């Protein structure tokens, strides 16, 4: 994956992507059992394991349970995931016995597009039959979003990604608002937090609409509004994300270099 979208904020020693990855890593608490998507979620989860969450259990959809990769896996079925795992099981088993049965605390997902209720699209932009852009599709995401206890989402913030209306719902977040997941009988609570390269958003307790709760250092509320395709809800008090510590940065760069 790319190291960074661009230079960091003026006067900082880190890039916007590094801030995003560190913030995403901090969202994973120690001891958590986490179903990890490849790319940014995998980087963040592995950073968390090297920082504050050494007992986090990482589960990959290739059937690897409790992987402790010594370097970042290049794909979901990288040999380093199976060699360092507590157990390796078949793909039908990982989805049925482990995910569907409700044994996973946190799902860690990326997406191409997201809407105000944290529904995710990784399938098509435009019509399904004649798409403007054909994306890879669902993979494990729909059932990860449905069945994990909660979901952490990470993606870069832009108007192309944060859209008013999704052309396709690949993975359900909070649907059309309060009570939607419950009506459908989904067992997981859905997205708890969305972490971008600009800030942190959380679903409002009452409306389930994504609300800006933290800005990364040097980012303004206007920057986030500019990169969001709807009239963004903003918390009464918006925090400023702690910048990456030297230790966090060193560990992250070590991971990328390994």
């Amino acid at each position, binding site marked *: *994956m790319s190291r960074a979208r661009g230079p960091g904020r003026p006067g900082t020693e880190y890039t916007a992507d590094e801030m995003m990855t560190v913030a995403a890593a901090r969202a994973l608490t120690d001891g958590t059992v986490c179903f990890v998507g*490849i*790319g940014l979620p995998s980087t963040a989860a592995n950073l968390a394991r090297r920082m504050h969450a050494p007992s986090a259990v990482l589960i990959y*959809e*290739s*059937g*690897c349970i409790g992987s402790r990769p010594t370097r970042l896996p*290049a*794909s*979901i*079925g*990288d*040999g380093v*995931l*199976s060699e360092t795992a507590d157990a*390796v*099981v*078949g*793909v*039908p088993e990982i*989805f*049925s016995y482990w*995910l*569907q049965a409700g044994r996973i605390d946190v799902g860690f997902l990326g997406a191409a597009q997201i809407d105000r209720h944290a529904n995710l699209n990784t*399938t098509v932009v435009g019509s*399904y039959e*004649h*798409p*403007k*852009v*054909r994306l*890879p*599709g*669902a*993979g*494990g*995401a*729909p*059932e990860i979003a*449905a*069945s994990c206890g909660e979901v952490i989402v990470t993606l870069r913030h832009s108007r192309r990604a944060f859209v008013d209306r999704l052309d*396709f*719902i*690949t*993975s*359900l977040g909070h*649907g059309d608002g309060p009570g*939607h*997941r419950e009506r*459908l*009988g*989904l*067992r997981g609570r859905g997205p708890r937090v969305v972490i971008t390269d600009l800030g942190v958003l959380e679903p409002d307790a009452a409306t389930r609409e994504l609300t800006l709760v933290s800005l990364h250092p040097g980012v303004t509320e206007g920057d986030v509004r500019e990169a969001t395709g709807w009239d963004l809800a903003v918390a009464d008090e918006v925090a400023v994300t702690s910048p990456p510590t030297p230790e966090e940065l060193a560990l992250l760069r070590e991971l990328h270099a390994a």
Partner: protein
Amino acid sequence: MAEILDLPEAIARHVHDGDTVALEGFTHLIPFAAGREIIRQGRRDLTLVRMTPDVIYDQMIGAGCARKLVFSWGGNPGVGSLHRMRDAVENDWPAPLELEEHSHAGMAERWRAGAAGLPFGVLRGYVGTSLAEHTATIATVACPFTGEVLTAVPALQPDVGIIHAQQADRDGNVMLWGISGVQKECVLASTRAIVTVEEVVDEFEPHVNGVVLPAWVIDAVTVVPGGAHPSYAHDYSERDNAAYEAWDEVGRDREAFGRWLADLMGASVS
């Protein structure tokens, strides 16, 4: 009962125009050599089944082998898009490609039902997503004991299933280990099964997560060292990440792909 054949013979005998064909392997043990042989032999109108159509299916789709794709995630892992697949879906080039699109959980359940000889699989899946609006093979079923409404997906039962494994023995039994994906289900669910292997050994040794498929559920075993390249075979080879990256350039451009295809077809004449 497995016959030990060379690869062209195995493909010629078991893969026919119009067949439903699955080449499985979840990042690990992807049967690339078998896919390229299907291209060389000019198979057409195939329904291709695979959870993660990656570069191997991009090549087969670009070469015009496929009429339909049954899948759950189509991308070049760690790199980006499959440009031949996108060209087929977005521009009908070289031919229109019908899609039957699922999630991994659904496809895995379809494989398990196929292996079990059941007509359908059951899961808690797809709820609240747009997938069911576009995929006819997603339905609901009520549990006869509790009344709970669940998702039903039909079994996968391809004409031919093809996998790559580390070893066969001289009787045609096959052993694979490491990330085992849905390979066992693919062989058991398919009417005919072809396995390419790294080597033939006198006797299997035990391996962590080892899966043994007896000769009597396999039709052809063919020895193709490196037959999973650029994917890998645990304990035999490393994943060639550079080759996956290099494919992006080739797949992105119809002319570059045409040159790649001409090279491949030329190789079959020599």
